[in-house]
């Protein structure tokens, strides 16, 4: 197994958080993992992205030009990373900020989720990327959802542990949205 996924969006959308979370989930599942962020810390208002690689062998390059999966939280990310997905791969895109006509490919599985609205419905706009992660994990099954719960308690500082249930709700909401008819594909 060698699963590589790029997550991308605006700085501040929580991209690095979900990347880290997925990586730790993989690690706790016994996989070899790398997490590589590419974030303009010296560049406010820019875009952020990260690459997570999960493998049953030692990971060579933590970067990839043709990932299996992409989670794209805004339009520029869809445009930039969508075309790079390997045939047969997966794109989860944020239908709150990206129009349905932004991008089309027939050789991948493309899942649009209204992450912002779902997150706001859960009461916290910052959960949008968590929703996307839920959808991605549901579609790909790359890690067990249970691992994400464990990883959350490892990744979040003690005092934020009270937020774990809410995060898990967001994951679950993402899963549900991905399963919805019409949540799949370009519509």
């Amino acid at each position, binding site marked *: 197994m060698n699963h590589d996924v790029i997550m991308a969006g605006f700085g501040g959308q929580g991209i690095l958080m979900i990347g880290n979370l997925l990586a730790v989930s993989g690690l706790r599942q016994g996989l070899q993992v790398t997490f590589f962020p590419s974030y303009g*810390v*010296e*560049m*406010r*208002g*820019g875009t952020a992205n990260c690459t997570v690689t999960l493998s049953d062998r030692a990971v060579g390059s933590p970067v990839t030009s043709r990932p299996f999966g992409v989670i794209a939280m805004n339009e520029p990310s869809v445009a930039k990373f969508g075309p790079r997905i390997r045939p047969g791969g997966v794109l989860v895109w944020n239908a709150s900020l990206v129009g349905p006509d932004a991008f089309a490919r027939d050789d991948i599985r493309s899942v649009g989720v209204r992450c912002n609205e779902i997150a706001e419905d859960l009461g916290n706009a910052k959960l949008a990327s968590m929703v996307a992660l839920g959808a991605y994990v549901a579609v790909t099954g790359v890690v067990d959802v249970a691992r994400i719960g464990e990883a959350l308690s490892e990744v979040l500082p003690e005092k934020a542990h009270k937020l774990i249930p809410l995060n898990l709700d967001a994951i679950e909401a993402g899963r549900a949205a991905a399963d919805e008819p019409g949540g799949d594909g370009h519509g």
Partner: protein
Amino acid sequence: MKAVFTRPESLTDKPFHFCPGCHHGVIHRLVAEAIDHYGVREKTIGAASVGCSVFLYDYFDIDVVESPHGRAPAVATGIKRANPDRFVLLYQGDGDLAAIGTAEIIHAANRGENLTVVFVNNTVYGMTGGQMAPTTLLGQPTTTSPYGREFGQDGYPIKMTEMLAQLEGVGYAARVAVDTPARLAKARKAVFQAFETQVEEKGMGFVEILATCPTNWGLPPLEAVKRVETEMIPYFPLGVYKERKGKDFL
């Protein structure tokens, strides 16, 4: 219809990359207004510095040279000495001006270089992620003073305007804020004065502007704006610290 408030001409149309509620945007606009007011756009050369304002060159429709972190006053000296008839503008953050660039600003000021310096004090290193600056307030936690700035360890926050005002080479020195409409109006005047000082060749025109960095203060924009008044102004008193009337230093 009469324009009450419109975008100044020397600002390009590019949207600012700053975080929500960041005062860099307001200050950029004030500077652009001053450029327009003094009609110097076509003869201005900016010495950009490194910090969240590094993209200055994208926002002002003027000539700009990028300076290494802290060295804008030296770069500007080179520009002005070789081009005394040009208008030379500096825009520096507190990490840039009050830490790594301490020697450069003090000696440019002491030499009496005819330069206009806009100094944005937001008590942190913004661009690099909120590390402690020489201006960080006592007790303020930052990513490199996680337990809060403590005098025994880190020293007191430094007051650059007071220090520079002492130097003969400085023609104008003031500290202002842009957190309320009234203070904003004064700040605008101060920025204009700092321009005028150069136009009239009275030495360095220096204005320190207290500013928010909501992101690195970990505060929502409106709370960040309030902090300027509740925490910054008490330690960094506003006012004009020096105003030379004539060329009396010559």
